[in-house]
């Protein structure tokens, strides 16, 4: 393993969702309504944490540890 502990090649997961209520949800904020605590719980399972973040009107982007 590299000195930094990094294995270079990444694993990439993309999940798509649709809303139960076609009038609201996905077309509005959808998954962006996940609170930070929920994101941290998800990332805890992966063994990552958020180290930096940025967002705009379309989506949120997080740089993660590891």
């Amino acid at each position, binding site marked *: *393993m*590299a*000195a*930094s*502990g*990094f*294995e*270079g*090649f*990444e*694993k*990439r*997961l*993309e*999940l*798509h*969702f*649709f*809303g*139960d*209520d076609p009038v609201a*949800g*996905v*077309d*509005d*904020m*959808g*998954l*962006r*309504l*996940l609170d930070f605590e*929920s*994101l941290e*719980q*998800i*990332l805890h*399972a*992966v*063994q*990552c944490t*958020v*180290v*930096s*973040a*940025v*967002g*705009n009107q*379309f*989506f*949120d*982007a*997080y*740089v*993660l*540890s*590891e």
Partner: protein
Amino acid sequence: SSLFVYPNKIIIKTCGTTQLLKSIRPLIHHAANLGLTLSGCRYTRGSFIFPSSQPFPHTSFKEEVIYIEDNLPANLCYRKASVMPSKLPSHSWHVFTASDHQNATRFYTHVPDDLYTVEVCMTELDPVLARKFFQRQGDEKNGDTAGKDMTQISGIDSINPGAIICDFAFDPCGYSMNGIDGDRYSTIHVTPEDGYSYASFECVGSVYEDRDDITKVLKKAVQVFRPATVSVSTTCRREVWGRVARALEPLGLKCRSRVVDEFPAAGSVTFQTFTTRRK
């Protein structure tokens, strides 16, 4: 590593010995609390440099597929797993997709057929350029400020001058950035250590845009690292692999292999490997 959260999709890309697939179950759970149901899944990765260091469920692709299938709802029944080979034995592309018939229709709705995803994996980076991703001793900079320096001195900030960049430098070395430009993301991750240096670049685009756009972007991204070996996966419902070749061949990289496979709800995945002509 990076996380992108859109209203209808989430993308997580992690390196190291992270257990990425363990996010599936909590993601489905938290999304359900928002009234959202899973309609599609795509998992991709290259060949690990240190496969024996990977923890469960990443011990093998077969194990990963079993784990994903166990954690997906049964209605995502259109499933396909494939290892796309190359002429370089250590460079294979692993792809798993899942969707169900009803949701596949929505999936296509959310993924217009003009959009493509490009995933670039680079190894054997130019050692002089890779050195830019080491923190300098005594700098006393934190991850944010050191990351900004690396973005600037490496030329990453010129790949897409219109993007807002969020970057971070790891200690003692390594770098991650996310670029956001409207509804498009891009991301770069670097492991610069000599002997197993690695960098990745990923972005999305549209086939309707100027054909030169992706060519220019790929050229700039690869020139930041001048790697000896590059593998590129493109996922799209239309042909875009030719643009990749047009970007890399002028840089002295020769296409050694190309394989194409079709995946339900994802479209066509093309996997190409390039090496420097001197190899």
